[in-house]
């Protein structure tokens, strides 16, 4: 399969939560390609999490559709912002448990656990209960659990919140490794510098609508004569400065 093959296409997605007047997502389109990362930006409540929930199959779109150019549904893995594992299990027990939830043989599950331990440098902490691990190790475990699925598409929801610069660099390097291996990445974050460093494409949402979408370089050039100084300037230009919460 060649580089930049589209893995997943979402077109004109619409979703409205029950008992809500406004749509959480309104005609949002997105393309995820092999080996590329799309930065998903937007203020709190803009619809980022709803979009992620539609892409990982937790919710079904009420309008629009999601298609797969590869002919079969890709494996989509999700790294939530929360530490979505069991703090009273060790890192290895957590990985074993989630590997056990895959439709894999026992041998394959063990291999995937060892691979995740290695990829996220967790061997040193493998027998330590997750509760007793640092924030950085827990973030790595959170990513490692997603890697067990050997995903075609990785949905990252603020994966570096609350970690030190070393851990952040490590996590970003791992995501780059995955991209090099052909994984398509959707990277939702409030850290503009991470998007600038990782993503060639950007999708900016607010109130469930797309405010800006496309190649990062193109968007930074702007529509007028004056380009945006950086991604934060672009973000503020589109979403305004007023507080949202």
């Amino acid at each position, binding site marked *: 399969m060649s580089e930049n093959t589209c893995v997943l296409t979402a077109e004109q997605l619409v979703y409205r939560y029950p008992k809500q007047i406004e749509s959480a997502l309104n005609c949002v389109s997105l393309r995820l390609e092999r080996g590329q990362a799309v930065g998903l930006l937007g203020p709190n409540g803009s619809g980022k999490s709803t979009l992620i929930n539609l892409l990982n199959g937790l919710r079904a779109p009420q309008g629009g559709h999601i298609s797969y150019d590869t002919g079969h549904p890709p494996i989509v893995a*999700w790294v939530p912002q929360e530490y979505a594992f069991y703090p009273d299990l060790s890192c290895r027990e957590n990985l074993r448990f989630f590997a*056990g939830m895959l439709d894999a043989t026992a041998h394959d599950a063990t291999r995937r656990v060892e691979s995740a331990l290695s990829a996220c440098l967790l061997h040193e902490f493998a027998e330590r209960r997750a509760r007793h691990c640092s924030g950085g190790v827990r973030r790595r475990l959170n990513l490692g659990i997603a890697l067990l*699925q050997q995903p075609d598409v990785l949905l990252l929801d603020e994966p570096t919140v609350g970690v030190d610069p070393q851990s952040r660099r490590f996590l970003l390097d791992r995501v780059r490794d995955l991209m090099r291996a052909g994984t398509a990445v959707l990277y939702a974050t409030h850290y503009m510098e991470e998007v600038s460093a990782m993503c060639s494409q950007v999708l900016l949402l607010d109130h469930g609508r797309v405010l800006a979408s496309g190649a990062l370089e193109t968007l930074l050039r702007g529509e007028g004569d004056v380009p945006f100084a950086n991604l934060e300037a672009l973000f503020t230009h589109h979403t305004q400065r007023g507080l949202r919460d």
Partner: protein
Amino acid sequence: MNRDHRLSKLLHLVIKEWRLLLRNPHGLAALFLMPSAFVLVMSFTLKNTLIVRLPLPATGWVLEDKSPIAAQWSREWLARPDMKRFLSREELKAALKARQVDAGIIVHAGWLGDDGRPRAEELEIWLGNRVQPAAAARLRAELSFSMLQVQMKIAAAEAGPFASVLLSSASSSELLPERGAPTIRYLYEIESGRTMTAVQQSVPAWLIFGMFFVVIPIAGVLIQERNDRTLTRLTTFGVTPGLVLAGKLIAFMLLNWVQLAFMLLVGRVLVPLLGGDALNLNIALGWFLLMVAATSAAAVGLGLLIAARTRSFEHAAALGGGINVILAAIAGVMVPRMLMPPTLQTVSENSPMGWALDGMQSVFLGDPDAAFILPRAALLLAFAAVCLLLSWRPIRHQEPA
């Protein structure tokens, strides 16, 4: 997902629940130590309430009536074991406080009336704080009989020498003999041929109470899974809510069986080791298994419902613990139903823990029959089904209702 994969996932889910449980010392204490402690305490506490004839408490006497009849009557009483004479009320009070005696009798001046008959209202009974009501009731009954005897003697003396001779040798112990008293038997004793002991009542009662406390570990895990979005993550791994629910049901119903084994050991080994009666395990196995399974389903169902419908562990623990204590109090786990007023007894018989207690005690007392056990097991299973139904939606949507 094929059948093998589904079973493998279920096994992983069950093992995960057990691992988490074994690392939760507070949950284990609530499930094992608390009901065991209750069995021990209640087996010894209730030991005497189920004995029809209790020994009289050690009693001190203060004789303020100076009549010869009063002196003769009190002499007969003081000849019994554990009876002691005191010169004043102050002395008696001090002896009660020092626990030298457990009860006191004050024979007021004027006990023997002007008509030459003893008057019950001139007799006062003092009780130490540790005297059981049943022992006090026996003391009062014996005093009444004894005074009746005095009256009869006086009447006989007035009637003539022949009648007086007939009664002269009678003593109070012959009126209320230790041997030859009427036999009193409860219905379950008649049906089963066994004597009800405190341990036979306490083990099933507190086992049920302990089983319902699975709400603590269930809530601890489920609420954390929901709040940390681990349940959502499991969904992205292709794990259905039904499979999650099945994993929890199996794990915690298995746990109930471990609790059962532990409580049987307590009743069979620990209680007799400390001087109590041993639990009689000559029980009908089929009915026993049915009652344990039905009770376990109801307990886990209620635990899942409370965990599914509360937002925090603190909320679930307070609500679950409170509901369990109330259900146990209503059912007669804490206080035997025989001590409740009739209306409360009816309510008690129609409550979830009441169905479990009745069915389980009928098994433990050795007189189970289908007409008694089956409706109670069915009610417990229906209760479990309703609880699971009500907890399904919040578990499916991974948010408290």
